[in-house]
């Protein structure tokens, strides 16, 4: 009561760094709590207005603050999940891995898609014709080619000049940095520096 559940919701965010399944049950409970607080407030404020019973005013105020706090908690919860999702977009690209996708609710998936859309629109507007990809070159470039070890089977990779390379677990390659960058971020390749 009075925002305790909201606190639980927020601490869940704080405890885990990755995206957990959306806690719909808890949100529903908080919404119910808000509803009952609100109903009580409506009843009390009616009482105040009708009977001029000023003694009820402090409790109305308390409930109002609890309501506001609950709302803030829920919104913070949603906002922070969204932020993590946004980071994933920059890290992994426009397609989410299934293990994350299953933890999202419909509205979030929709938000992700529209974020994708507006980001893509923005990137297309840059440069002259085919746009400019902002998700490459995330780290300052040091060399043109990097030595990488393949940690997971990936399959075929096509380079800019059309060459095809098979990335298989436990093989070692020297590849152009720009091609490797997203794969290193996805954890398929491991950067080896000597």
């Amino acid at each position: 009561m009075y925002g305790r559940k909201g606190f639980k919701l927020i601490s869940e965010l704080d405890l885990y760094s990755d995206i957990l399944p959306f806690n719909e049950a808890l949100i529903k409970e908080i919404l119910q709590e808000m509803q009952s607080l609100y109903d009580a407030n409506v009843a009390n404020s009616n009482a105040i207005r009708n009977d001029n019973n000023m003694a009820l005013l402090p409790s109305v105020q308390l409930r109002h603050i609890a309501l506001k706090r609950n709302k803030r908690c829920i919104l913070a919860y949603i906002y922070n999940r969204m932020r993590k999702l946004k980071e994933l977009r920059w890290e992994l690209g426009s397609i989410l891995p299934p293990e994350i996708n299953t933890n999202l609710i419909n509205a979030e998936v929709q938000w992700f898609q529209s974020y994708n859309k507006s980001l893509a629109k923005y990137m297309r507007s840059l440069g002259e014709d085919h746009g400019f990809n902002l998700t490459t070159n995330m780290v300052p470039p040091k060399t043109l080619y990097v030595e990488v070890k393949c940690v997971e089977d990936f399959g075929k990779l096509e380079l800019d000049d059309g060459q095809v390379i098979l990335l298989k677990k436990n093989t070692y390659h020297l590849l152009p940095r720009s091609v490797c960058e997203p794969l290193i971020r996805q954890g398929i390749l491991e950067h080896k520096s000597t």
Partner: protein
Amino acid sequence: MKQPLASTQPYVPLRLRRTQKPYEAEIGIEHLSFGTLHLTSFYTVLYSISNHNPTCWSSTEKFLITNNFLCEISNMENNGDVQMTAEDDVQEEEEVTAQSVLLAIEEAWLNEKFAPEILPHRSDLVDCMLQQITHMEENMKRLDKEDLRLMIHRMELDRIKYVITNYLRARLEKIEKYTIHILSQEATRSSEECYLTVAELQFAKEFLANIEMLFKTIALQHMPGNFQTFEVDTLTVKPNLQAYVFLRANDRINGIIVPGSMDEEIDLEPGSQHIIQYSAVADLVKSGAVKLI
């Protein structure tokens, strides 16, 4: 603001200059006397000084290097008679070379990186540079694969691309963080003096709309009565303009009032370096009189 660096010794001169001239941190230290509140800011200052240790500086500084790369590549195989259209356009308006565009964009990038709030956009520079990049890539295709220059040029191109992407990313991050604040500020500006480009503005608006949509569908619509509103005021995040920044003065500036003090004023000599609250120099950064480092 021309940097007299020999291209053979790319990084050393910068570091030397920094170690020769100790930080002029007197402003920060005077703040100490104002009580506990400033103590924390003092710590942040100390912390950032230690972070600014020259040996820790990575690529950021490296990009400040002036080189003749752009000149060379634009003249490469053109024998000087065929000039790029992009450059021509700009040249007609004002005398701008590819090299100075690069320098300007590097300065804009550093400013954007270190300033807490969003700065006026420099899409002119970005567009020009992007055109240059495409042009250079075209030029490079004509080079022999074995040519040593090719490697160097590609490396340099990668660095320029990094500067541009990082600059644009920094702006996007700020837009996403301070969406409501930026949009409301933007609404008060006329189309000539607005900070965002058209595309950025659209992105910001869409971003805000998406968030509102998300909030509404998940939570707000289920809330009782007047709690359903999307309260713009309470959701606004504002940049911390009181943050301390490192800067170097380009021109001589007189009479900056030190924030927090009653009427203390300082003057900045050209080339001198300072640590000061951003709010005191925000206008100077925007006008280009100082640059953040």
